[in-house]
């Protein structure tokens, strides 16, 4: 089974510039394109609040451009395809985001993202920009064993952090509290991904890696990183029965817990499949005595048209539930204020 090789682009070296131009033109009520490929809010946050910044490689849309807006990020620094932006651009993003309450730089743990963010913080220090903090986030249980959580990669479960942290930073909090909240959500989140297919690199048009039509891989990363090995494809229920137990054991999630659930489509999986997969997740969680507070099935972090998904769970308490329910208005993440929902 081969991946689609013709992409509707113009020139490989113009992909990022043109896509950001198109995106910001389409959603000019929410975002604007400023400086060197910075996506910032159309209406900045009020003075004195903690601002949230994230840099990441492009090619994972709507991550993270679609998550800039009220209740979410203040600035996103878009890198080249699957390549973290360099430190100088991150510093620019920090400057653009700062509204006097400090800036929290969020990093989804991948080497490039971490190294460049660390360099950016060193530059900030050298340039006298203070009140900037870094938080490293990870959730993928397949990328390092229990006990070595800090070595794990970031994947779709971090969308829980983005949503809850975004809501938290609309309120009155300081930078230390924001960082602590991000870590709290991270430490209550676990994810595992799988894929049925490869995809073509938008730049070269070449298939990123080979995969047989009847194979699947559990634990595959957002760039096709190997996980726990290939195996024959299973049914929806059997796939969940394989993936959910290690997630539950890892935290561990236990009877009586309340959770948020995310099934993230990595590109060309269908909603039909996500719905059928979720049915099994709901059954198994009910059996385990775990209550789902809200579920969330869509394509948030994609790897082009890869056919796969990530299953993420986040254990929540009253504080996190309230943050979940708080409004958000990114181009690709919207949450209505509770009182407007049944208008």
């Amino acid at each position: 089974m081969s991946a689609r090789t013709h992409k509707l682009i113009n020139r490989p070296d113009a992909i990022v510039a043109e896509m950001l131009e198109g995106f910001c033109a389409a959603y000019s009520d929410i975002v604007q394109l400023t400086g060197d490929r910075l996506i910032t809010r159309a209406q900045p946050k009020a003075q004195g609040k903690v601002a949230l910044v994230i840099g990441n490689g492009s090619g994972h849309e709507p991550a993270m451009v679609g998550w800039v807006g009220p209740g979410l990020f203040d600035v996103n620094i878009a890198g080249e395809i699957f390549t973290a932006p360099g430190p100088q651009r991150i510093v620019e993003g920090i400057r653009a985001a700062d509204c006097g309450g400090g800036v929290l730089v969020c990093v989804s743990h991948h080497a490039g993202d971490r190294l460049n963010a660390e360099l950016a913080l060193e530059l900030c220090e050298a340039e006298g920009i203070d009140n900037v903090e870094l938080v490293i986030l990870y959730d993928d249980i397949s990328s390092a064993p229990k006990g070595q959580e800090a070595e794990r990669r970031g994947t779709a479960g971090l969308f829980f952090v983005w949503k809850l942290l975004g809501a938290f930073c609309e309120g009155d909090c300081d930078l230390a509290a924001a960082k602590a909240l991000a870590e709290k959500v991270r430490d209550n989140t676990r994810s595992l991904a799988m894929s049925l297919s490869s995809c073509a690199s938008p730049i070269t048009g070449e298939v990123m890696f080979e995969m047989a039509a009847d194979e699947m891989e559990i634990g595959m990363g957002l760039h096709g990183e190997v996980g726990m090995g290939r195996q024959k494809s299973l049914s929806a229920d059997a796939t969940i029965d394989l993936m959910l137990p290690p997630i539950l054991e890892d935290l561990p999630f236990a009877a009586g817990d309340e959770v948020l659930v995310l099934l993230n489509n990595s590109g060309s999986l269908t909603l039909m499949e996500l719905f059928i997969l979720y049915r099994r997740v709901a059954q198994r969680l009910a059996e385990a005595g775990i209550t789902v507070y809200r579920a969330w099935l869509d394509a948030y972090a994609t790897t082009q048209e890869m056919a796969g998904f990530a299953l993420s769970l986040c254990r929540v308490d009253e504080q996190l539930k309230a943050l979940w329910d708080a409004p958000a208005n990114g181009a690709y993440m919207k949450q209505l204020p509770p009182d407007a929902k049944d208008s």
Partner: protein
Amino acid sequence: MHDLTAKDLADLIKRMAGRVLAEREMLNRLDAATGDGDHGSSISGALALAVQKIGALAEPSPQDIWLTTAKALLNGMGGASGAIFGTFFLKGAAKLKDVERISQADMAALLAAGLAGVQARGRAQVGDKTMVDALAPAVAAFAAAADFPSAWRAAADAAATGAESTRDMLARQGRAKYLGERAIGHADPGATTIALMFAAAAEPSP
């Protein structure tokens, strides 16, 4: 060979950039086997940017040359490799404050500082299948040599051997780490770039 001036350093970066550009497609192919196929394009693009930025400097100091190269790599390349290759020059540049002429011993210290910075940042050890496998032996060979021309020559040979040694390694850093066994049999692109850069340095200056 005389101590190096700012002009010599600018010339050195230019030769490195030229040599890497000439091998761009080979480096892309190496990276396609173990990573995402962009190493040749990104490193050659960033080095070309460095040459251009250096060319625009009026009366640069040695530190200006090294710092400009560092920034071009850091910001023009992005990703883990931009941070790694950029850090190499950034840490070297810190040694060049108020330095006008660079002896072989100065250069050895510069390279050693760069290597230490790379390893502090990227946590790669020799044997992890990264550019460190070429850089570490090159830096050691350079320091052990008697004078400039022989130091570059020794470093170039050591880098070439080091790069070649990555072929049979399992990767422990970089994208290739996620390929597991599949990366075996392919030389590391970053290590190959280091070998090319030292080979360029060992060429007689025109």
